[in-house]
Every structure is written in C-alpha cells, then in structure tokens.
C-alpha cells in the first residue's frame, strides 16, 4: 500500500467505528433515559405501567406505613398524590413531610412500585426536581432551601 492508501484505510476504519459509536449513543439516549414526573404529571400523562420513571414530591404526613420490610407511603405535590411502595431499608433521612425521589414503575393497579429510594445526603437537601414540581403547584413556601 502507498502512504496515502494506508492513511485512508486507517481513517476509514476510524470513521466506521465512530459512526457505530454515535448510533449506539443515540439509540441508548432514546431508549434508556428515565423521565422525572410529579404525581400530577403521572395522572395527566397516563404513564404506562412497567416504564421505569422517577417520581418526586413530598412524603405526605401520616401516610408512612411499615409492614415487615414493606414500606408504603404517599407522595404528594399538593395537587395530586400517589401511593408508593418500597421493600427494603429506607435511607436514613427519609421522613414524613420531607422531599423524596423514588425510582420504579407504575403498577397495573395504579400505584407506584419503587425499586430505589434515592438517598439524601444531608437534611437541608431538597431535590431540585421536587422543588420545581412543588413550585408548579404553588406548594413551595420555603426560601432558599432548594438544592
């Protein structure tokens, strides 16, 4: 091969790999991202059961019930609420009245089955998405506590 052919073959090889990689990334971005919803949005948009989503809001006061390792609580954004269940140990800072983000899917019965409750690392932290969801429903009162 001449010098030019060699260089062209290398560049062509690189081009093919890069094109494949870009396709892969785009496909993954289309299929593998997880949307964030507030309870109101879930009711409005009728999220299909089984699609992984994130749900955020406040844990409603007096709604947290523990039966063995199963926890049930209501996530509210002021306008609507949704019952979520989670089996396992909740993060240390999980309490009623606090903001929470849970990951999981909607069940056919219309409740939320959480696979993961996102841990908060300090007590002043309120997930940004939760703040925005609450603001959208006029429920946000605290000043400057947002993350």
């Amino acid at each position: 091969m001449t010098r030019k052919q060699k260089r062209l073959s290398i560049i062509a090889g690189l081009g093919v790999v890069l094109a494949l990689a870009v396709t892969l990334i785009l496909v993954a971005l289309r299929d593998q991202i997880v949307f964030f919803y507030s309870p109101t949005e879930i009711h409005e948009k009728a999220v299909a059961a089984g699609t992984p989503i994130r749900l955020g809001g406040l844990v409603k006061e007096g709604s947290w019930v523990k039966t063995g390792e199963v926890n049930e609580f209501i996530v509210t954004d002021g306008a609507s609420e949704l019952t979520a269940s989670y089996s396992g140990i909740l993060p240390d800072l999980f309490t009623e009245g606090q903001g929470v983000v849970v990951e999981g899917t909607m069940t056919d019965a219309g409740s939320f089955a959480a696979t993961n409750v996102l841990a908060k690392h300090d007590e002043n932290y309120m997930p940004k998405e939760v703040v925005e969801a609450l603001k959208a429903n006029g429920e946000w009162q605290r000043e400057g506590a947002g993350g």
Partner: protein
Amino acid sequence: MAIELGHFALILAVAISAISAVAGLWGWNRSERVALFLRQGAVLQFLLVAAAFAALIQAFVVSDFSLAIAYQHSHSAQPLLFKITSVWGNHEGSLVLWVLILVGMGVAVAMFGNNLPRELLALVLAVQSLLVAAFGGFTIFTSNPFTRLSPVPPEGMELNPILQDIGLAIHPPLLYAGYVGFSICFSFAIAALISGRIDAAWARWVRPWTLLSWLFLTLGIAMGSYWAYYELGWGGWWFWDPVENASFMPWLAGTALLHSALVMEKRNALKIWTIFLSIITFSLSLLGTFLVRSGVLTSVHTFASDPTRGLVILALLAAFIGGAFALFALRASSLRVGGLFAPISREGALILNNLFLATATAAVLVGTLYPLLLDAFTGRSISVGAPFFSLTFSIIMVPLLVLLPFGPFLAWKRGDIIAVTQRLAGAGGAAIFGAILIFALSGAQISLAPFGLLLGFWVAFGAMAELIDRAGFGRMALSLSFRRLVGLPRAAFSTAIAHFGLGVTVIGIVAASAWEVEIVSTMNPGDSKTIAGYTVTFDGLEEVRGENFISETGRFTASTAGGSERQLFPERRFYEASGTPTTEAAIETYGFSQLYLQLGEAAEDGSHVVRAWHKPYVTLIWLGCLIMSAAGVLSLTDRRLRVGAPRRAAPRPAPAE
C-alpha cells in the same frame, strides 16, 4: 492570628503566581534569569499555600469556631482525624487543597526538572502559575476559607456524619492529586504549542507526570468507589452518578494519553493527537470540578450551591479550555507528522486503544451532560442512569478488551497478526477453558456472565502470556527462561501487570454483578436466614457510645457449612450534634467474596428489617485497580525515566511564528 497569616500567605501566593505567569509568558525565551525566577516562584507559591493550608488545619484542630468554615463543618467532639479531614470536607477548604496540589505539582517540576530545556521549563511553570493565579484568585474572591465570625460561636455545627470516615482522609487527596496532576500535562502541552517544539523528548518528559497523575486518579477512584460501597449502604460500588463520571472521564482520557504518548515517544508519531489529549484530559478534570463545585448537581460531593461560584468556574473553564483549543487550532498545523506505520502494528493497536477510550469518554460525557442541557434548554427533568451507561460503555469496551492482548505482541511499524495470534493461542485456550468451567460449575445457565468472564480471563492471561513469551518459557531451558524473565525491561512488566490488573477488575465486575444474591427480611433476635450458603443469625442488639454518636449495634453471626463462624456488627448511628442518623454496614470478607449486612430501623414489635448481600469476588474490582496502580509505580521507576537528560533526536526545528 494564625488565620490572618494563612489568609495573607494565600493572597501572596496568588500575587506571586500572577507575576510568574506574566514574566514567564513574556520572557521564556529571553533570559536565563526568567527560568530561575519562575523556579523560585514555584517554590514560594508552594510554601505559601502550604502555610495557608496549615493555618486552616490548626484552626480546625483547636476547634477555633471564629473561622466560619470551622464553625459550619466541625465540632469539638469530633475525633482528631475527622477534625483535620473536615478542612477539606467543605467547598472552601477543598478548593485550598485543590490549589495546594496545583502548586505542589509546580514545585515538583521546578525541583526535578533539571534535565528539561530551560525554555520549556519556563513555559511550563508559567502556564502552571497562570492556573494557580486563576484558581487561587477564585478561592480568595468567591470562596474565601478565612472568613471570620464575630461573635465567636461556642460550638460548631459538625461535619456531615456520612463524611466522618477514614475515606475522607484518603479519597479526596488522592483524587485531587490525580485530577490536578493532569494540569502538568496541560501546561506541557501549552508550552509545546507556544514554543512550537514537540518531539519524542517532549513525550518522554511528560510521561512521568502523566503516570503519576494517572496512578493517583486510579487509586482515588477505586477508594471512592469502595467508600461509597461500604458507607452509603446501598451495596453498590458504582452508580454512574454524574460526580463519579466527572472523575472517570479524565481517567479514560488520561489512560488514552498514557498510550498515545508512548507512540510519540517511541515513534515520533501521533504528536497532534497527544497534545490534544493532554488538553482534553485536564479540561475534563476542570469540567469535573465545575460539575461538582458549581451546584448544578446535587450529591454528597456538592457542598454549597452559590450560583455566582458556578458562573465564575464556568468562565474559568471557558477561558482555559477555549484558550487552549484556540492555541491548538493556530499551532497544530505547524507540527510535522512523524513516523510511518502499517495499520497492523503496535502503533495501529495503540490508535485503536485511543479510539475506543476516546469514544467511551465521549459516551460518558454525553450521558453526563445530556440531562443538564435538556433541563437548561427545555426544562424537562430526566436522568440518564446505569442502563444508558451499561449499554453504551460496555459495548464500546468489548472490542477494546478483545483486541487488548494483541497490542503488546505486535511489533512497531509492521506487525504480523497471524504470528501474534499463534503466540496468544495458549492464553486464548486457557481463557475459554476457564469460562466454560465456570459456566458448567455455575449451573450452565445461559447468561452474559460467561462471556464477560471470558473477556476478563482473556485480558489477564493474555497479559501474562506476553511475559511468558518474551522470556521464552517452553522454547528453552527453564533456568535460561527465568534469567531472561528477570532481565526483561521494567516497561514490559508494568505493561503486563497493568493489563493483568484490568483483567482482574473485569472479572470482579462480571462476577459481582452476575452472581450477587440479595435478601431483605424482617428479623427478631434469635432468627436465622440463609443467603448463598451462609447462615446469618441475629443474636441481639446493644447500645454503644462513640466519641460523638450513639450507636444501636446489631450482633450477627455468619456461619458456613464448613463450620466457620464470624461475627458481624451492622450499626445505626445517631450523631448528636447535628441530629443526623446514619447506617453503617457490616462487611465480612471470605476469600475474594464479601458478605454485606445492613440493619434497618426497629419496628414497634422490636423486629428489624435486615438487608443482606452476598457479593462473589467483589474485592477483585478494587484489587485490579491496586494492581494497575502498582504497575504505574513500577513504570515510574523505569530506568529510561531516571537516566540523565534525554537529548533531542532531531536538530531543533525553527519555531514557527
């Protein structure tokens, strides 16, 4: 008083760095005295920033709560170690640590750079000083750690209990040494672009700094991963969290840089690409600093969210990265292309390595920034989590791992792929045999795990095969082979060991992900549960007082069929000063596998939720990282990096101006 002195020292260091930067960029090729001035300046910057840092440590150790950050992040009841680590357990203090490592790298170049050409040394120190001026200035003007409070509060507010761990003493300094260490590669790249002189000698001078930063970053990431694993109590060791990605991207780019610099050093090729990678690697470190420190993300790493700080970091980021790429665009075309090679050759293999590592970096970058950009432009909140990264990253890694063992076997310039395949046949056969054996032993279930293991074995065995082959085992008398093995250059060992370490990490990742067992159950004292052949018995609870917390400690016994009995003590702690509860998992290591116990809150009837994992071969993940770092240390001691001044091979090309 000490605090004011520290404050003054930091201001003085920034002033000196600003003067150094100006003097160096103006006079690098004018006078010998400029280089001397810059070297002395680098020493002074280091001593002054070290003094400022020492002043902070002293204030934290004596619990001087007139210092605002000590009040906000420390408490007099904290153990001494955690008082010291509290210094960088906050935004302001961690920036001082950042700057301290920046000047530390500068002084190291000034002290050990005797064999560098005077002009290159002056330029490197000038660019490094510019970084110190920018980030030192940022610290003083937007995040001053020396702010005092009056009246003095009687007691501090305590460090976030999650951070009260030995991990905080190790993880940030290591990670920062890696992150910020790449600033030297950046400074070298800018110096090369300004002076217009880039050759094999340049690559050789840069190599020890790249290696040093890379090995610190490897250790820092591994340590951070293990810390998250045992402290956060979710049983996971990597979450594809944006802050993890922020440290992983410079690692991927830095690994690519290590390999491309090799081509440049040995063959004087890939020069433009190597310069580009040097800039990219440090830019990704800066991007990581921006993501973590600006408050655009919320995580355990984000201490404060003050929007002005984010904007200033973004401006600094744009100035440095933008400036570097503008310079690159102006000057890169003046670099002459180096040695020729065939597609199948050592060079070709290293290009493929770079291609896959760069693509993987890009995939991680897209996944990390996409949610931020989407939120900024459309207001839609999404998260790009593990599914995205597992899919894209692992698919990109597969060809890299398949091709990796071929690389070290191929000759420079033109390799013979058939001959190499024959020499690797033994390693390939052993890997396939191992994977099939494990497939059969694990119950012959069809899954991706045996293929993952096959890859891990292939990389690990292939790395060892290179040493065996070069020593000539099987082709000559055993004693002669041993003598040849001992006589191999250290570079051969460090390559083989680093690749072996990667194989070990891959095996650990595959095994721990595929065969992990988890149970969640409600237990009363006296109850037993079985998990993966271990019988875990809940013996009871006791209350234990720590220095600054009360702990509810569970006593568990794990017994195996073989009759071994070990005690585990998972805890629920309550930190009194801040009123924060935390959980401390109990981890027991059996060989390379671990049993992981987490204790939940007590229910009204006195029972506890217990979450237990069995993680087979999970420690191999971190062990592999340690092996890779050890290979880095070995490579640093290589003769060719220590022996006197490497001389330029070619006559000096005229600076293109």
